[in-house]
């Protein structure tokens, strides 16, 4: 069966706004989602590791206690921020997305179950008064493992979505939805690429906690920055190996996009490599200082920029993968202008209200209700 003949026909309804707007919103909201997800997963993993395997180090034990209460809210933010890119990807690439999810329906459905267990697991740890009690670190680690599986299923789905040539064989072999995308050569390096990046960026949760603690207790704060910095550096160094593996695992046409074939992709990769090296260098020097705050901010800032470019690279890669079959930029458009304006106005109001909530929560002088 020809690949093109099984790709579902486009939805007859036109795009309700120009293509570029959906693309912008997709990449932007994906960036926000991935950063918060990294904080949740990477931060949670580092905390679990510190809590379980550095029992003798008091500061590591404190790190565990300080970080784990933040994880449930970060998971809430991850899910909430994940909804938007999931919506926009369905608008632009619905016929690829739905097909991939159906072929691997059970793992995709299990995402919900795993998220639910992980979420309650995180809350058990966060709400437990005595965080040194037995098993609590394991609850954390198992919950993190569930998120790890969720990530793997996501990688499976999004690689499968981009490989229509493999659909037919998978589906007709098993229509009950018990497929993954194991035959895809880029799956493992791609997943590892995200995983290692999660640890690198997740370390910023530890570092930021340190930075905000600096004025209260500089020693412990410095420990957090150093510990976070170490995780960041080792993860980013590993990323150079994993990243190269991912790059060479790509089909030739897709790989060439990053070697001059596509200017944005090439520049993004270059920024990724140079930015990564610079951030490692700055961090490694910084954590030897008595006051590592400024270098830590710099390393995080540079990494933030790198992540933005990586999000764009990912999009270029998807476009390259799908280009033999489909160009989303050529989709018919009929803008729903009134609703779009309403969305934009509400979006701005939403951000303002959100910022006001955060401001009033964190910066209102404490006067407890119960006092």
């Amino acid at each position, binding site marked *: 069966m020809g690949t093109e003949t099984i790709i579902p026909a486009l939805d007859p309804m036109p795009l309700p706004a120009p293509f570029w707007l959906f693309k912008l919103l997709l990449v932007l909201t994906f960036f926000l989602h991935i950063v918060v997800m990294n904080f949740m997963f990477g931060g949670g993993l580092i905390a679990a590791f510190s809590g379980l395997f550095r029992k003798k180090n008091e500061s590591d034990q404190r790190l565990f206690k300080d970080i784990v209460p933040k994880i449930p809210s970060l998971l809430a933010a991850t899910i909430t921020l994940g909804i938007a890119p999931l919506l926009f990807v369905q608008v632009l690439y619905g016929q690829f997305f739905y097909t991939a999810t159906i072929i691997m329906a059970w793992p995709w459905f299990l995402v*919900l179950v795993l998220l639910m267990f992980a979420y309650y697991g995180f809350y058990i740890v966060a709400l437990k008064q005595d965080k040194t009690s037995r098993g609590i670190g394991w609850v954390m680690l198992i919950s993190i493992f569930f998120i790890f599986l969720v990530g793997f299923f996501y990688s499976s789905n999004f690689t499968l979505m981009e490989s229509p040539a493999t659909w037919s064989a998978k589906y007709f072999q098993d229509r009950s939805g018990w497929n993954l995308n194991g035959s895809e050569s880029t799956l493992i390096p791609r997943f590892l690429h995200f995983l290692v990046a999660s640890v690198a960026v997740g370390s910023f949760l530890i570092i930021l906690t340190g930075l905000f603690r600096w004025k209260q207790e500089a020693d412990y704060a410095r420990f957090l920055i150093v510990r976070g910095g170490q995780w960041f550096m080792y993860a980013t160094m590993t990323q150079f190996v994993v990243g190269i593996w991912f790059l060479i695992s790509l089909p030739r046409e897709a790989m060439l996009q990053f070697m001059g074939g596509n200017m944005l992709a090439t520049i993004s990769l270059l920024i990724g490599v140079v930015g990564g090296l610079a951030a490692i260098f700055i961090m490694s020097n910084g954590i030897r200082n008595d006051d590592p705050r400024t270098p830590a901010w710099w390393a995080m800032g540079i990494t933030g920029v790198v992540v933005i470019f990586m999000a764009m690279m990912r999009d270029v890669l998807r476009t390259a993968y799908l280009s033999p079959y489909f160009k989303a930029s050529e989709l018919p458009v009929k803008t729903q202008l009134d609703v779009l304006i309403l969305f934009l106005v509400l979006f701005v109001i939403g951000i303002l209200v959100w910022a006001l909530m955060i401001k009033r929560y964190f910066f209102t002088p404490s006067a*407890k209700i119960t006092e």
Partner: protein
Amino acid sequence: MNYPIWDLTFGGGLLIAVVAVTHVFVSHFAIGGGLFLVLTEKKAYREDDTALLAWLKRHTKFFVLVTVVFGAISGVGIWFTIGLIHPAGTSSLIHAYVWGWAIEWIFFFLEITAALLYLYGWNKLDRKTHLWLGWIYFIAAYLSMVIINGIITFMLTPGNWLKTYNFWQGFFNPTYFPSLLLRTAFALALAGIYALLTGTVQKDPELKGKIVKWSARWIIPAFIVIPFFAWWYIGNVPEIVWESARGKVPTATRYANYILVFSILTFLFSLATLIKPKKVPFVFSLLIFLTAYGTMGSFEFIREAIRKPYIIYDYMYANSIYKNQFPGDGGLSIQNIQQEGLLAVSKWTAHKEITNDNQLEAGEDIFLLQCQSCHTVDGYRGIRKVLVQNQWSQAGISRRISSLDKMFHAVMPPFAGSAAEREALAAYLAALAPLDPDAVETAETEISGEAVFEFHCSDCHEYAADDTLFTGMAKYDVAQISYLMTRLDSLDEEMPPFEGTDAERETLARWIAEQFK
């Protein structure tokens, strides 16, 4: 057709129902419960009641763990699930309402943030700021319902959208406002019903009594106004659609009966809590919780059932086939499939042509593509059971497939496919339930007019004085009726010929002539 079908043996419809009903029972609590938190907090300040305040703080934790975790994930869960079971329908909803979903997402984001800050704020904030956060939470949560209600009601009553494809005309459709008020009332009732759960485990009888009385004040008024809003809602559903719940379609009718029983029980049980509010046991609050779950679940089942055979009324059938042909439909309209053939139009089928060798396998493909969005073989709405019960021959099955859209108050879409495809489907279905020779003999020896009517006519005709069979035959005598039954297609070209024996025909004619005199 356009998409692969997830072959879920126990039934995709059941999976959606489980995820969706559980979600709405929590999501409505998330809305009403938000107002409950704020007003109860104000009440506690006004009455200077520290015990009530301390309970409310614990109730907030319960609220967040239920709504932010379970509510949010199951909400995303509905989206995941419908995408797996009804990808084309999901795609339509996404494309028509992207900006609606995006706006809902803004409110959702505010809602989740506010809920968490409200929870953590108990130990940190002053009263004014804390209450302010509670109000933001409630307003955002309510507004998210204001949005999603437009999209859900659109599916049942798309109104003028069918002509204009205009966002607002589909959004503010005929059932929008009654549904919003109905859901608002239910959300308020659920605030009280969930509060009873945590309230009745309190040891202090004074506190418990106070919470129970306060909760009842949320449930009882809501259940008094719900019938009025429901009546308004029903009034805006096209009459022919609502008839499904008035006896014409078994599922819809069953749940219409359930909802009456469950809502009356919820109301009466809630009233009963006021007899001895200090002594209401937890088990009793759980009972109210379950009857309310039954009420909400029944409502969702009715809504889904009366919408059949559509997923988006008058636009797309439940099996993803478009009702009408239009540019860009990908050849997936009923007219085109009837012309071209289902297997030819379908992208995701193992068999593109029917041969003598593959008839059963092709029939299975056709079942999967066209029937499995609602039916399974042995699971939810299992077809084998129906076939075994009715003992239809392959020809009888084929004939019924031709008139699917006439059966059971048009709850099913017409069959879309060629004559050969219909035969293949009939052969596959017949093979699922080989005829039982004993049963056939019994059917032949025990002839009663009623039995013949049940067997040969009742798929499309009802035993009712106003049914066309009885009104049409009223002016004829037995001999004339018997004669007319030999040439049914001359009465209506869509009627199949009478397939019974002469004796059955005579019996049926006599029986018809005697009914509704």
